């Protein structure tokens, strides 16, 4: 008899029906709080630009790591980005446009790029992550600038 996925599925179902149950409980369960109780807002103090920037950077972490030595993901690692040349993270596959841009990521260049990525570097593969708000850009750049070895 050959292995039939369908038969296997049916056999499995029969087994599930027939067998006794063995419940696997959590190995470890950390209860922070019950639902419905509002968390204390953890908003950073307004004057702490770096902390505000770190919070604002959260959405960027979907594509970018800012950890020292962190692996590049969909976007390159941004640890130490302020001051370095565009397209310079080893092993990351940049768009041709970025690789040939000749930019150096000064704070003002970063600001212009994040404000409008494809306007600053037409052909960039950074299709999301535009930050229109100047204050938020300043905070994110302050956070990135604070990440030095």
């Amino acid at each position: 008899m050959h292995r039939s996925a369908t038969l296997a599925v049916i056999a499995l179902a029969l087994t599930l029906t027939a067998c006794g149950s063995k419940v696997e409980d959590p190995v470890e369960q950390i209860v922070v709080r019950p639902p419905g109780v509002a968390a204390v807002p953890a908003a950073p103090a307004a004057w702490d630009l770096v902390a505000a920037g770190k919070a604002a950077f959260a959405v960027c972490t979907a594509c970018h790591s800012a950890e020292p030595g962190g692996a590049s993901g969909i976007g390159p690692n941004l640890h130490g980005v302020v001051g370095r040349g565009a397209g310079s993270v080893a092993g990351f596959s940049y768009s041709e446009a970025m690789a040939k841009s000749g930019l150096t990521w000064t704070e003002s260049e970063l600001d212009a790029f994040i404000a409008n990525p494809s306007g600053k570097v037409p052909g960039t593969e950074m299709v999301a992550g535009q930050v229109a708000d100047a204050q938020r850009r300043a905070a994110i750049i302050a956070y990135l600038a604070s990440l030095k070895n």
Partner: protein
Amino acid sequence: MNDMPQQPQRSRAAKWTRRGFIGAGVLAGGALVIGVGVRTGNPVGRLGPLVAGGEGEQLINSWLKIGADNIVTAIVPHCEMGQGVHSVLAQMLADELDADWSLVRVMQAPADGSYVVTDTIRTFVAPGTLDAPDWLEPTWNGLFTKIAQLADGLITGGSSSIRTTGQRTMRIAGAAARQMLIGAAAREWDVAAAEITTANSMLSHKPSGRSAPYSQFAAAAAEQDMPQTPQMKAPENYRLMGKDVPRIDIPDKVNGAASFGIDAVVPGQTLTYAAVRRVPVPGTRVAKMDAAQAKTMPGVLQILNMGDFLAVVADSYWQAQQALNAVTAEYTAPESTIRSSDDQFARFAAALDAAGDKGGEEVIGRGDVPTAMQAAAKTVSADYQVPYLAHAPLEPMNATVWARDGRCEIWTSTQVPLMARSAAAKALGLSKDDVTMHHPMLGGGFGRRLETDYVVMAARIGQATGYPVKMIWSREEDTQKGLFRCADMSRFTGGLDAQGRLTAYNNVFTQRNDPADACDCAFYDIPNKSIRVAEAELHLPFAAFRSVDHSQQAFFIESFIDEAAQAAGRDPLEFRLAMLGQSPRHKAVLEKAAAMAGWNAKPAAGHGRGIALTESFGTIVAEVVEVDMSSGKPRLTNVWCAADPGFAMNPDGFRNQMEGGIVFGLTAALYGEISLKDGAVEQSNFHDYKLMRMDECPAIAVEIINGDHVRLGGAGEPGLPPAAPALANAIFAATGKRIRALPLAKHFA
């Protein structure tokens, strides 16, 4: 094209019709139904409240109800995952019922044992019984209904819905209900039933000039005895079947109203959200979890180490994912020594080497291969391989669970709602009656949602929290930690006689799942054949992938046939046609695709055309792919597809499935690769697990041949298998480069 068969096979149709009717009858528990909700003790009595709770609604039989407003609702057991099954099964029922299509609605049948798909299970498990003598039919039907119920046989897959449930359940339910309505009207009007006609959901008696909407007799019809042989339509009388009826689900899919599993709400409750991270290597466990930072993060409610996965529950999914990113863990060492893709393919090669010319388990043995091979004027040999693939439905795996007080309610996208219910019940130590399933539309299934792993994970999280929680996998989890189309390797030797005919065929491969005959191109007339499987260990867990074994076997077989044609010095089309003397339908399909493509006209400079022919899930498909290699990389310009599904119930829907299957198959052929590093999957999201996009999609033309209106084939999967070999053969035609390992794009990086 939408050709009606020239000569309908009446006697065969009538025989099949009777069987189908009895099937529907037994399915409802011994008597197809009647008066639901009014007779205690009748097994269908409980269906009324379940499916016909609306005011003025009357269930006529298990599969349809009629409202006071004359709305007919088809109760469809199969899941809607894009294949259009809700519409086409309603279309089949409505045609036999003579219903006004504008007054037809569809309802998803509940996850209840009464709605198991007996004929689907039977077709998979014991297709031979479909040809049993009539007198055995009630026995077989009763047996398979019981089996289906025991096996939680409410399943959508195998490109089976139209040809099993549609043909043998929905049409019969519609035809039976129509006769019951006529019977009720004849009694009330005191006229002969034969004088009553039906059309557009109306009953008419011409001699007396009386007419009434179906709704007027719905309650009385439900009291009628079931007709033993409801009259089914012959193809020339089809009014909706075979027509491009617009899909019922589409309007809600253009305005955001369609509800998928991921959109579930728990009435009256505030949802919480779980993000999860499974162990990176199959079979390992979490050795140590550090959640010190995560538990201080905003919105976090609970952090769970479930042994085989980690979960963070939070007020918002985004917060849960952010906190999960901050959880670190160590894992136990894996047992498997397969660490890389090279390791995996080395296992396959070793199994093939060990099998040699004769070893392995025989699947097909015909004639005398060694003698024919020895007598061959020329031999040709080749090895082919394919990588693992992720299904990557765009809706990530997810399930919403509310477990409390010894009960559990689950909302999820699934192809197997009853199996998911049982799996969750088992995981929670509940009886399956204590688990209620809600299964809305699927944002893609492709076989991945035949598995219940994600439902069980959500149930375990829900049990731990005790409050409603929606678990959603990230795309990274979906790409790396799920179940996969197997990798495989296949080895061929062919012998050609002095006339260039393929007289000996020796093939061995390592993975065999479903369908059983996917490895055999039985339609080609090859006198001596030995096809064997030499099993080899797989590192990643398996789940059926759209077209299952055909997804790799078609690439192996139709690439090899092309190589044999080349060795014989023959045109690939001519070589194939010469082997189709016993298979006129296959020949017609292949000739049609070639004609559509203008096969005999030379393609433009730098372009090449490749052809492939397959039969899968009862449907014969030939595809010609044209590729432009002038830039050095493959750019697909055109696909021409001819298909014979027996009879296309909804030609436009069938074409849409072919187009989708072709894109799915070309995507896998060009880009699809899940590779291993340190025992874990390397790819993570759509930037490194590429799917075909609009700017890469060729023009696609599809034509249909209706070759057999009784034995129908499927639609969801058969478009896929020929795509990969046709493309590989086209690249060979353009470049002279024969690629034997997928994905293709990797060879032109």
